[in-house]
């Protein structure tokens, strides 16, 4: 299927200029699901099958429908609030499409865990529709110690009135990793997004968030933290697109990265496109190094350099990632092994 390679987005496209998917895929096979995706449900929830997602006409959308076949589709009924999360895990190669719909007042946590195989190509298109007053917690992690392959995950999230969406993403990158989240705010909604990428070797990770405000009164917080070392590359692209009716939008976007090596790279593009006049939108972006004087202060108190570095980095990442203990533990493990 090598001709598919020619359809892949490449660095000549603005939205992919720092994440050259075509350049990296090479001869990797592009294939279907082949039973490699498991959807795990930890307790019985009366999900019904849902409709197929609308077709998407861009290259990644076409590839996932051509090779992924029918989407896996679930509906969480009105008002249902299962206590256990929906787990999507053990996916390591192929194309898959998923659709999850939360009816009004429903509440669900989804934990997506992705991996890749060496030289593999994983492509996930996931659609969430969150109806009035429903709340979705989405937690995305990519495997820490994997043979790095190519992973592309794109979520399309539609939020209706009074919906809440909380997203936490943690990645250690891969040969190529892109986690893209596209949100449409169709009513007054609340969104909290946090993410962190920790990269070493020649790994690559891209967090791209696009938020489209179509109605008044939404609140969005989006914070991404990055730590890059060796010759790795981190990419952050964030955009708030505030349409004319979306008055009283209150939206903030932050990206902060620390570079631990001269050879590492960070590319960041926070963007605002605003057509409404009564809004509060802000973005901030910093790329820096660990504070040498703080490190000296810690060493003067007896904390060895490596441990001092790990403490500052952990604080930096965890402050932005929120208080998910399992994730904090993963972050700690990664930092300790590299401090």
């Amino acid at each position, binding site marked *: 299927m090598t001709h598919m390679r020619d359809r892949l987005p490449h660095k000549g496209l603005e939205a992919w200029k720092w994440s050259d998917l075509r350049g990296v895929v090479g001869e990797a096979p592009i294939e279907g699901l082949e039973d490699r995706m498991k959807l795990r449900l930890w307790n019985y929830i009366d999900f019904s099958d849902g409709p197929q997602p609308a077709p998407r006409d861009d290259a990644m959308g076409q590839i996932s429908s051509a090779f992924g076949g029918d989407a896996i589709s679930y509906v969480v009924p009105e008002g249902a609030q299962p206590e256990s999360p929906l787990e999507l895990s053990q996916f390591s190669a192929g194309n898959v499409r998923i659709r999850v719909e939360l009816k009004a007042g429903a509440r669900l946590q989804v934990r997506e865990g992705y991996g890749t195989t060496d030289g593999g190509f994983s492509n996930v298109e996931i659609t969430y529709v969150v109806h009035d007053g429903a709340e979705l917690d989405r937690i995305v992690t990519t495997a820490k110690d994997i043979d790095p392959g190519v992973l592309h995950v794109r979520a399309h999230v539609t939020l209706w009135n009074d919906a809440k969406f909380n997203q936490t993403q943690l990645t250690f990158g891969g040969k190529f990793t892109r986690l893209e989240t596209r949100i449409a705010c169709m009513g007054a909604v609340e969104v909290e997004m946090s993410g962190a990428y920790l990269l070493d070797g020649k790994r690559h990770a891209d967090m791209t968030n696009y938020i489209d405000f179509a109605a008044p009164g939404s609140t969005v917080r989006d914070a991404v933290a990055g730590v890059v070392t060796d010759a790795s590359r981190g990419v952050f692209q964030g955009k708030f697109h505030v349409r004319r009716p979306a008055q009283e939008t209150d939206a903030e976007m932050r990206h902060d990265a620390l570079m631990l090596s001269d050879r590492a790279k960070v590319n960041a593009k926070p963007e605002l496109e605003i057509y409404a006049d009564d809004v509060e939108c802000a973005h901030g972006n910093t790329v820096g190094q660990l504070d040498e004087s703080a490190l*000296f202060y810690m060493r003067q108190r*007896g904390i060895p350099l490596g441990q001092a570095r790990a403490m500052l980095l952990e604080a930096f990442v965890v402050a932005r990632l929120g208080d998910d203990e399992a994730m904090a533990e993963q972050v700690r493990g990664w930092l300790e092994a590299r401090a």
Partner: protein
Amino acid sequence: MLKIQNLTATVDDGAKTILNGLSLSVPAGEVHAIMGPNGAGKSTLSYVLTGRDGYDVTDGTVTLDGDDLLDMEPEERAAKGVFLSFQYPLEIPGVPTLTFLRTAMNAQRKARGEEPISAPDFMKRAKSLAKDLKIKAEMLRRPLNVGFSGGEKKRMEIFQMMMLEPRFIVMDETDSGLDVDALRIVADGVNALRSPDRGILIITHYQRLLDYIVPDAVHVLSSGAIKASGDADFAKRLETEGYDAYA
């Protein structure tokens, strides 16, 4: 205890000499004060003693109980008992004060081959010292020095010092920015630490701290060297006469 001989230190790859043949001895059990004009090299001395990057020692020696300090990493010097109360304490974002201090204490203990302090023992000591220093429990849970006022930071330096019980203490202008009440609290803390096997070097601009902590000797540091020494009364004379005679 601390012996500094002919210490010469430069910055900017030797372009600028800041310490210029400085010699000083602080015997165990004594408190010495260093006074001197702005830019004399007082903070530089404190950094060279503690091993901060950016300074090249081009001549001289520094020993603590006969061990060569200049050969050690900053954390090794700390484990040997060298403590610096910073003129400008650093902010450590995201690391709660007590977490920081317990990590530091246990890192020092580990380096000395000692057992870590138990959590209850640590908390007991922290609580009682915080009370003595009038530090609120709430402050100990906040990230170290983040958003603290100048005075709070200085008090926190003393708190760390008393928790860590160092053997040799350097205090760099701990008194500046403190009101009289805070000054007294700090002085009480330092006086409590005076002991036959501990040495203390107080760098200060003002004689007033030395009313509370009476030093065994007072030295004038000017242009990177000790230019004169005397007893506690010498500090009073310096304050009225200034340092012009020692330039």
